[in-house]
């Protein structure tokens, strides 16, 4: 009996604190968080600004990958939820004069849940390419809606996003970059960490296992009592809410929301980031988002043809490293460990 317990502890991470501090991953994670915390002090304003954008996208990517990596549904219109989140902040701060960021985030989630529940009810009836194209269609529908209904949405010029109050504090006297890479940076970092924690709980939960079952083999899952369509729908709604929070966090950074946010290339960016980082790993999409944002920044300043470079990279990933960066790192780490063992 005793040996049984020991062997299961080695293979399955145990919940206790003692087991947690013995694991290397925990320390790596803490080191990562510490880097993010210290960055505005040591890394310079521009780098912090880029990382700030990453936090927003990171939350959206976590949601996107719950649907893609864990449920097996590739959405090609997920920027739609990102946009709904961003427009919510714009509406609340600029039109309704409700400057509180917390209110913006909550409303963004509510709006996204309603939209996702409706669109999802239609879309989850389909899978694979049909699902992807249907989502693409909904994304582009939103795009034309935002362009055409000028009086509600500001048309192609979009709408401004006023500086939000954080935890009730009015910080409008600060210079823009100081605000963004100061208080706002830590605010978004906190939301990012909480969102990542919650998503980790979701994928480690009973529901998470059921979603993976739906992805791997819907027929078998159905016979094991999992209502496949309903579970896809749940995943879709959670995913939409996450993307909306991401959009809401990014909105004050860009300062103005416009319809290009929901253009299909922006949905494509989310797909690209996820593939780049690796969708089979929980942290993969985050890694992909971070690398993408820095690469884009670097390549854009050097070359006019940055899209060409990114296209070539995408082809390279799909052919050579389908597991993305995270997959490649895992492979190398495993090889290294095997060598060390031998």
């Amino acid at each position, binding site marked *: 009996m005793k040996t049984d317990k020991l062997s299961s502890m080695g293979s*399955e991470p145990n919940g206790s604190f003692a087991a947690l501090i013995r694991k290397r991953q925990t320390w790596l994670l803490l080191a990562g968080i510490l880097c993010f915390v210290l960055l505005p002090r040591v890394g310079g304003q521009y780098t912090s600004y880029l990382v700030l954008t990453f936090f927003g996208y990171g939350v959206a990517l976590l949601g996107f990958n719950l649907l893609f990596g864990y449920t097996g549904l590739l959405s090609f219109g997920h920027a739609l939820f990102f946009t709904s989140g961003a427009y919510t902040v714009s509406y609340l701060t600029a039109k309704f004069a409700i400057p509180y960021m917390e209110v913006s985030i909550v409303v963004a989630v509510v709006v996204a849940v309603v939209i996702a529940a409706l669109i999802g009810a239609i879309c989850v009836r389909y899978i694979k390419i049909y699902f992807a194209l249907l989502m693409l269609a909904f994304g582009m529908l939103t795009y034309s809606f935002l362009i055409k209904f000028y009086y509600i949405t500001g048309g192609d010029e979009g709408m401004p996003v006023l500086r939000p109050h954080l935890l009730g504090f009015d910080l409008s006297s600060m210079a823009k970059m100081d605000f963004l890479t100061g208080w706002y940076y830590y605010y978004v970092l906190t939301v990012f960490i909480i969102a990542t924690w*919650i998503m980790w*709980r979701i994928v480690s939960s009973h529901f998470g296992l059921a979603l993976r079952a739906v992805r791997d*083999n819907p027929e078998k899952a*159905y*016979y*094991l*009592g999992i209502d496949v369509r309903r579970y896809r729908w749940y995943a879709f709604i959670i995913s939409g809410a996450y993307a909306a929070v991401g959009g809401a966090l990014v909105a004050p950074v860009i300062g103005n929301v416009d319809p290009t946010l929901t253009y299909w290339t922006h949905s494509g960016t989310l797909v690209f980031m996820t593939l780049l980082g690796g969708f089979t790993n929980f942290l993969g999409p985050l890694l992909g988002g971070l690398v993408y944002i820095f690469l884009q920044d670097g390549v854009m300043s050097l070359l006019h043809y940055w899209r060409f470079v990114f296209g070539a990279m995408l082809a390279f990933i799909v052919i050579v490293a389908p597991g993305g960066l995270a997959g490649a790192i895992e492979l190398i780490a495993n090889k290294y460990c095997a060598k060390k063992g031998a």
Partner: protein
Amino acid sequence: MILSANEIFKSYGDFGVLAGVSFQIHEGEFVSIIGPNGAGKTTLINVLTGLLKPNNGKVFFKDHDITGIGPAKLSRLGMARSFQLVNIFPTFTVMEFIKLGVLSRQGKGARFYAILKRDREVNEEAEEVAQIFHLEDKRDVQAKNLPQGDKKLLDVASAFALRPEVILLDEPTSGVSTSEKNKIMEILIDASKKMGIKSIIQVEHDMDLVFGFSDRIIALHSGKVLADCTPAEMEKNEAAMCAVVGEKGCFKICSSLLE
């Protein structure tokens, strides 16, 4: 009586598959459904498990009308199935696979903020099922890396983890070597005793297994029940034996019998 099929008709377009199938399954029975390819066995199972809605006729399970209600609801009522072809979640470990059945039965599938690994109820029950099926040593092996026989067992084990009253086994030993077949059947019988399964219905081609384990045999041919009797009676029923073994000239006898 725990399960009954009443006058089931099912056709795909103009192509009729089941032409009025009726039978009853009682508690404690081990029933085998046999028949040549194209007799409608798989369609029958799909109708019995509520996946397909028949064009006509009804299926009752413990006084519930389960015609076309779908496998997920049916699993909650107490009926589960395994599959003819290996039907697994390739990336799941053995334990995850069994846990999925367990958590589904416990109605915890939608718990999205509980850590599965800390759920003692699920883990203990999954452990029990793994031991019954002799899979406990392979707990962390990915399903796709298991040998064929174990894949089959795992498929069945996850269905048993639902603790059904009636289990439908669609060729539980197909694709498995002859020496392993009996071993798998013995584990299955042993498991159903330990887990309180009331009735087993199996579709099987291997006549040794059919005659060795069944209380009753239902022979299906061209979408109709050709014979419904004990193994001993079946051996005397030339026409049905003939249809099942499928020798030349049999078709005539069978067709004449059906008319």
